[in-house]
């Protein structure tokens, strides 16, 4: 029974590698191999590379100071944080929200067997994230301190213990999220607030970590002694990596017991949570006269409602809504200092400072790409706009307008803040604003264009169009590419052209490109949408 469920679960996890999500047809073998190579490259080279550098920065200093265990504590801590907190919402949706929960629960399958098969999904995700930290950690340690049979075996066990801890924490946090989700109103916004807080914390730690590591390595012996005397559990845990068999045995037993307890607790509450449909108090309907809207107004309101109803949509496609004003406020507070540092680096070239500031704001605005998955998000309800007496171009316009509004207004705010601190002529300031605002218009049209050309309507989870589609990849990398294309040439031809003419040329390019894309949406795009 478990074998069948595990097979089904693995087929689901890796389905995207073997089947095209858009057409539901099997991929060519070469395509599948390419997908796996790309995935391996991102995980091993990019993420693994980052943590190899972190490990190299710490390992030598800490092992030579005789506190190699502290190195394992720190790296395991990072692995657990990355693994558990990174997958908490996936755990919730993977455990409690799969569409086949009802079907499986109606079959003669023990609840515990369903949970274990579901947990495999969670375990793989957690192991993957913690692996990109733990594997470099172990290899770097073995390279620096040398290998013995004991430290290799214990090191591998440490990795398994870390993945098990990640699984336990993911399950507990997922369970808490599930409980909260059943009780809370305005879940979408609360999820976004929690996620944004987590991201802010993550980046704070990320930027501070270099300094902390430097201080830690410099005072390794002192910190080591303090931790050893006041938190001996941490000392014992770190000793696993150094090859301590007693510490390894104790933690293996403790982790196994905790894991068993977790599965026991989950199986008791699983049925209730998985089959609940929100016990939030009912909102009472009170009849009131509605305000009449135009067809476009109604479509626009609908698009905003969709955007604000989904934390996934807001977080993955609308981060710029928060980041642009935040950048503006930051520039108001620290802008003078920040821009003078850049000015010094650029040898007082104020024109280049203005251009970089403009490019930086453009780059932040590319975090907004809500127009890209918008057509795909219609999914099975696409019959509604298609059967209503509205032209397809009006539907597409409303979709593009959401991004224009949600990026244009924050961009305008950030630009006002920037202009207060930027040392430039009035003409330069006006053109920086024009270029940046027209860029937001252009990217909104571009994302609508990409989204209309590559829709996925047969998705089972909204994550697919929002996060895992080629449309989003093109929108994201396209946005970055456009910013690079804007900024880089200036450093070669800026002297000859001058900032104002350069920005004028780009403003004209963005305006023309936006108009051409708008025309495409109104004609060919509208026809494509009507025929979906």
């Amino acid at each position, binding site marked *: 029974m478990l074998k069948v469920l595990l097979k089904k679960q693995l087929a689901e996890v890796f389905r995207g590698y073997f089947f095209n999500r858009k057409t539901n047809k099997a991929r060519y073998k070469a395509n599948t191999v390419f997908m796996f190579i790309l995935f391996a490259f991102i995980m091993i080279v990019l993420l693994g590379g980052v943590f190899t550098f972190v490990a190299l920065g710490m390992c030598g200093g800490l092992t030579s100071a005789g506190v190699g265990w502290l190195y394992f504590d720190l790296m395991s801590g990072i692995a657990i944080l990355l693994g558990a907190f990174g997958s908490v919402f996936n755990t919730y949706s993977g455990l409690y929200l799969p569409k086949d929960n009802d079907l499986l629960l109606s079959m003669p399958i023990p609840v515990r067997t369903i949970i274990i098969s579901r947990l495999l999904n969670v375990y793989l995700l957690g192991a993957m994230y913690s692996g990109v930290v733990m594997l470099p950690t172990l290899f770097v340690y073995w390279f620096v301190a040398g290998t013995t049979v004991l430290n290799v075996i214990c090191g591998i066990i440490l990795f398994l213990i870390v993945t098990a801890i990640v699984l336990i924490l993911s399950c507990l946090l997922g369970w808490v999220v599930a409980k909260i989700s059943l009780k809370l109103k305005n879940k979408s916004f609360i999820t976004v607030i929690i996620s944004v807080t987590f991201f802010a914390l993550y980046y704070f730690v990320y930027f501070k970590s270099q300094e902390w590591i430097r201080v830690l390595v410099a005072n390794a012996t002192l910190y080591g002694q303090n931790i050893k005397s006041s938190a001996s559990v941490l000392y014992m845990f770190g000793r696993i990596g150094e090859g301590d068999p007693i510490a390894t045995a104790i933690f293996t037993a403790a982790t196994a017991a905790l894991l068993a307890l977790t599965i026991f607790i989950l199986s008791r509450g699983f049925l209730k949570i998985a089959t609940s449909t929100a016990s939030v108090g009912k*909102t*009472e309907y009170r009849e009131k*006269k*509605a305000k009449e809207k135009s067809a476009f107004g109604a479509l626009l309101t609908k698009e905003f409602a969709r955007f604000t109803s*989904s934390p996934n949509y807001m977080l993955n496609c609308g981060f710029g809504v928060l980041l642009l004003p935040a950048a503006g406020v930051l520039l108001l507070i620290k802008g003078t200092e920040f821009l003078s540092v850049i000015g010094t680096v650029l040898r007082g070239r104020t024109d280049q400072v203005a251009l970089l500031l403009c490019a930086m704001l453009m780059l932040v605005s590319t975090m907004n790409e809500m127009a890209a998955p918008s057509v795909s998000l219609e999914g*099975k309800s696409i019959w509604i706009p298609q*059967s209503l*007496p*509205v032209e397809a171009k009006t539907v597409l316009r409303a979709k593009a307008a959401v991004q224009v509004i949600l990026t244009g207004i924050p961009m305008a705010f950030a630009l006002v803040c920037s202009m207060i601190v930027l040392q430039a002529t009035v003409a330069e300031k006006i053109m920086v604003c024009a270029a940046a605002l027209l860029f937001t218009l252009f990217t909104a049209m571009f994302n609508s264009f990409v989204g209309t050309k590559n829709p996925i309507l047969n998705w089972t989870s909204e994550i697919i169009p929002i996060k895992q589609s080629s449309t989003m990849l093109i929108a994201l990398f396209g946005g970055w590419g456009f910013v690079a294309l804007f900024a880089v040439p200036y450093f070669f031809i800026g002297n000859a052209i001058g900032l104002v003419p350069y920005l004028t040329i780009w403003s004209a390019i963005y305006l023309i490109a936006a108009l051409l894309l708008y025309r495409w949406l109104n004609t060919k795009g509208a026809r494509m949408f009507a025929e979906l």
Partner: protein
Amino acid sequence: MLRIENLTKTYGAQKAVDDLSLHIRPGEIYGFIGHNGAGKTTTLKSVVGILNFDKGEIYINGSSIKTNPVECKRLIAYIPDNPDLYDFMSGIKYLNFIADIYGVSPDERQEKIRKYADAFELTKDLAQPISSYSHGMKQKLAVISAWIHSPRLIIMDEPFVGLDPKAAFTLKEMMHELCDNGGAIFFSTHVLEVAEKLCDKIAIIKQGRLIKSGTMEEVRGDESLEEVFLELEAE
């Protein structure tokens, strides 16, 4: 009200609808029956302008759905076989959205919502998100949204699926009321007893081709609709 002329629609090499012609007049409740995959849904989707078709023409009140889709859609309402509505909206927001699109005045929509939501006992749930609705509740909401803009022609694909007996009765009453006021209804169903009692005319489709149509008496003669249908299917 609705004239379908030589409608042909193919999916690849497969003909889903083959040279189908029908005429539905004001005041008629027209039933559309056939086996699974016979081409009923394809026909209905073509009528409401969701699907492009290869040959033929569809006229609604004299206007072609091909050349004047928006004008035609103003006169019709469509209820699909599976009410996939906007889950992220509440029931009332969805109804207001539809009313806005059709330009229904605030007073008129308020009156309609009150009338039909009360009839379907959905009023107290209107503020709830559609995602929390059962299949039957979604179907009721889809029905209310179809009636909210006083359409002249309603196209329905299996409208009684998921409705409780009381709601099904209410829907039948609403269908009669609409047709009494000069409207028309074209709907598919597998429930032959319902078709027999409710419809003025009936069309039977088999493998995309119309095999029999006419008034109920013309189609069934002295037999029951079920017997006629099974005989035609066996041929």
